[in-house]
């Protein structure tokens, strides 16, 4: 009670609570659902206020295989990387990921140019195979995303998934689809707290409830601007807790894609003997980036390597001990 009083003195607002996944009773088909956000404190500072939910990890799954993977990813995900459904199942069931983040890279005109039907049936297949909610990402090319994602949103209607990403220059189409189909949305801003807030206002203005928005603040991997992302997230979160509703959204951080782009995660031991075991190095690079983002306030991490996921899951369990 005393703690609660003190927290109310300290912060006037909680982060919005975002629900991921809908059960059969709620009109979906997920047997596993999550809530994130709703904290009244800075990350893991339990004395400041209540932190009801632990951060969750989504496994990054691609609809088309990536030929340019570093050795450790290529070998450790060898069996599944060509089949997104198996890949998702393996990550959710064996690797311990809480949910699955499907990136529809293959719809990009330069990487396969798949159509709405392809994407829609893949999403449905994934939903059939895994029990968890999905995060569904477009390819980043505005026009194509606007064509495909609303369709995917429609065929997954009622499942309360998380779609992304919308940006300031292109947010209306996907947001409107998500509003109509009961999904959540990811708002992406280029490491800028003002733009993050502006985009949240724009999305809310067209009718998206504030508790169905997640902020992608754009991060950099360890050694690649991580501290910049950290300070932006810290600033946004502290503004949110101090009363700014338009910044009081949970954060999603795309750790896997950033960490595995780092030279340190990719270079082989033969090329750089002093850097040591390449397999472990990549895994650690991803885990370190993820843990720093947890400290910055991430509510959802997307990650790639099963081992890194295990390390970070353990860290979350430790951090969540009061």
């Amino acid at each position, binding site marked *: 009670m005393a703690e609660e009083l003190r927290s109310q003195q300290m912060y006037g607002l909680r982060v919005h609570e975002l629900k991921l996944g809908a059960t059969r009773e709620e009109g979906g088909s997920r047997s596993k659902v999550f809530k994130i956000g709703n904290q009244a404190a800075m990350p893991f500072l339990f004395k400041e206020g209540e932190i009801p939910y632990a951060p969750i990890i989504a496994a990054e799954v691609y609809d088309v295989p990536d030929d340019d993977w570093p050795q450790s990813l290529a070998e450790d995900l060898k069996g599944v990387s060509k089949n997104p459904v198996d890949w998702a199942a393996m990550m959710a069931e064996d690797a311990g990921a809480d949910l699955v983040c499907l990136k529809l890279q293959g719809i990009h005109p330069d990487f396969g140019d798949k159509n709405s039907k392809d994407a829609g049936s893949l999403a449905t297949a994934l939903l059939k195979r895994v029990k968890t909610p999905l995060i569904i990402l477009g390819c980043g090319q505005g026009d194509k995303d606007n064509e495909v994602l609303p369709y995917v949103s429609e065929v997954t209607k009622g499942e309360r998934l998380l779609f992304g990403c919308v940006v300031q220059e292109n947010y*209306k189409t996907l947001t409107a689809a998500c509003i109509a189909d009961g999904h959540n949305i990811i708002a992406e801003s280029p490491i*800028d707290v*003002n733009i993050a*807030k502006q985009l949240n206002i*724009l999305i809310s*203005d067209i009718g998206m409830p504030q508790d169905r928005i997640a902020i992608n603040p754009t991060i950099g991997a360890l050694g690649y601007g991580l501290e910049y992302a950290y300070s932006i997230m810290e600033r946004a979160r502290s503004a949110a807790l101090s009363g700014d509703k338009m910044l009081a959204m949970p954060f999603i951080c795309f750790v896997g894609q950033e960490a595995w782009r780092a030279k340190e995660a990719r270079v082989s031991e033969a090329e750089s003997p002093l850097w040591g075991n390449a397999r472990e190095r990549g895994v650690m690079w991803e885990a370190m980036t993820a843990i720093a983002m947890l400290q910055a306030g991430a509510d959802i991490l997307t990650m790639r390597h099963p081992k890194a996921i295990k390390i970070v899951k353990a860290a979350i369990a430790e951090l969540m001990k009061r």
Partner: protein
Amino acid sequence: MNKYTVTFYPENKKVEVERGTTILSAAISAHIHLNSACGGDGVCGRCKVVVKSGTVHSETSGKITCEERKLGVYLACQALIESNIEVEIPAESRLDLGNLSKEELELRLRDVYSKAEDITQAMPSLGAALFSHAPLVTKFCFQLPKPNFDDKISDLERVYRAVEDKIGEKPIQTGLSNIRHLGELLRASDWKITVAVSQKGPVAEIVSIEPQDRSDKNYGFAFDIGTTTISAQLVDLNKQKILGTKAAYNRQATFGSDVISRIVYSKAQDGLEKLHHAVIDVANEMIETFTEEHGIDLNDVTAVSVAGNTTMIHLLLRVDPTYIRQEPYVPTANYFPAVKAAEAGIKINPHGLLFCLSGVASYVGADITAGVVACDIHQSKDLSLLIDIGTNGEIALGYSDWIISCAASAGPAFEGSGMSSGLRATRGAIQEVRIKPGSFDVEYVTIGGDKPRGICGSGYIDLICELFKHGILDKNGKLNREIKSKRLRNGSLGHEFVVVFEKESGIDADIVITDSDLDNLKRAKAAIYSGIAILVRHMDIDFKDIKKIFIAGGFGTSLNIESAVGIGLIPDVDRHKYIFVGNSSLAGARQALLSCQASLTSDEVAKNITYFELSTDPEYMDEYMAAMFFPHTDIKRFPSVKYV
């Protein structure tokens, strides 16, 4: 070198130029003025001409469509002449250099001082009695005693003695040209002479000595040299009376629309010379027209006082402005001594003086000093804010104890420059806009009631606000593509909203606002608002602590305050605090002309204004990004703004 003849139509003017000269340079040589907002960099696309015959060489430009290219349309600044050519200049590429219309003059120059009575009542602190009447140059008539054996001091000492009797003991000086023929002049006029004296400095300067009594005829000019517009007032220095006000375009616009592109141009061959002449030509023409209209002898014009931004003052005096735009942004001078007007090329009495008001820094010039003095901020007990909305948005905040200022580079968007249908506040410019709900039909008011030719700053502000009210724009300033209306469409420069269709307009085109125009306007308003916000934040005060807000600038009198607040250009405070002062720079220049005290005060004020450099302030970028939203990212700052 091969020389070629260029013939310009419809003037049928011919000019001979060297091979490889641009059409723009040739036009300048032929005294034909083309629009050239970017200063000849080929990026503004405003100097389109049609080559009827002959050969030119030009790189392809995104500003010229394929169809235009087939018709022989080129950018004058990019087309190099390679043979004798004939060039047709379309009306829209022409820089309209005529004097401004009467309506426009009234609009721009209806400043506080031309309506002295009204203002004296409303704002006693701005009354004419602010400074004692002591013109920069005063004429005295003397009947000197003839020399004799008891009183045989020299002729010059005799004149000095008479002046000293009049103005009190003070060192006196004069130029050699006044002395050379003094002996003859005194005797021929039977020792009755008129002496014009400038008393501003510690040393009194005898400006001129004339035969007989001409002391009742003493005139001066006050000038505001703006980047876009030059305004002038003819003042009777004895009677403290304004005889007339005129404004004309600054012909330097041919060499670039903002100070930076002009400074760049000054480095071109004869660039500084051309810029200098462009401005003094306009000033001299204005002086000439004025004196002719009022039957005044040029010799009776003894003083000119000038306010303007630092770059304009440098160019007027033909001082190299280069270092203004190089870090750490230091001008050659902020304070210029009084000079002979003739030395600067200004044609008044050959001995007449030119006084430039003092500037503060490279980007906060004498115009803001003049504005501060005219609004009496330096003596005010009330915390005041002066916002001069021009190409360089200058902002001053303070009161009698301190004044801080900054320059927010807003760009020329609010002056209609660099916009797809932009127009300066001239006849036919749309200055008020209302949009009807449902149909999105547009009602507008133009300056002079003419057929619309474009949109000026106040029109844009109104337009943005209306577009919001009807959901046509989102808060990021993007047109809503989902609205079905004949007015919303995809244009060559992205999405656009048609304000006036061609059949209604006074030009051969639709008048539109595009996504990129909206971007320009958003940047301009963000620059001005964030400049204000930074000053307020740095002085650790609140907007509501400010008691008076003076709005100066080109659209000062026709600005819809609700719309300006609505788009987040100016702070959302009690509307009663806003005071429109029109051209405060011209008002300050006139005060300095009429009172040495005002002139000295402005020097003092300039020294006491603290210049705040925004570009090195770590918080500025954050404020700017927060202001890049309509009305603002932090909506709590605009509580009265409600969009539907």
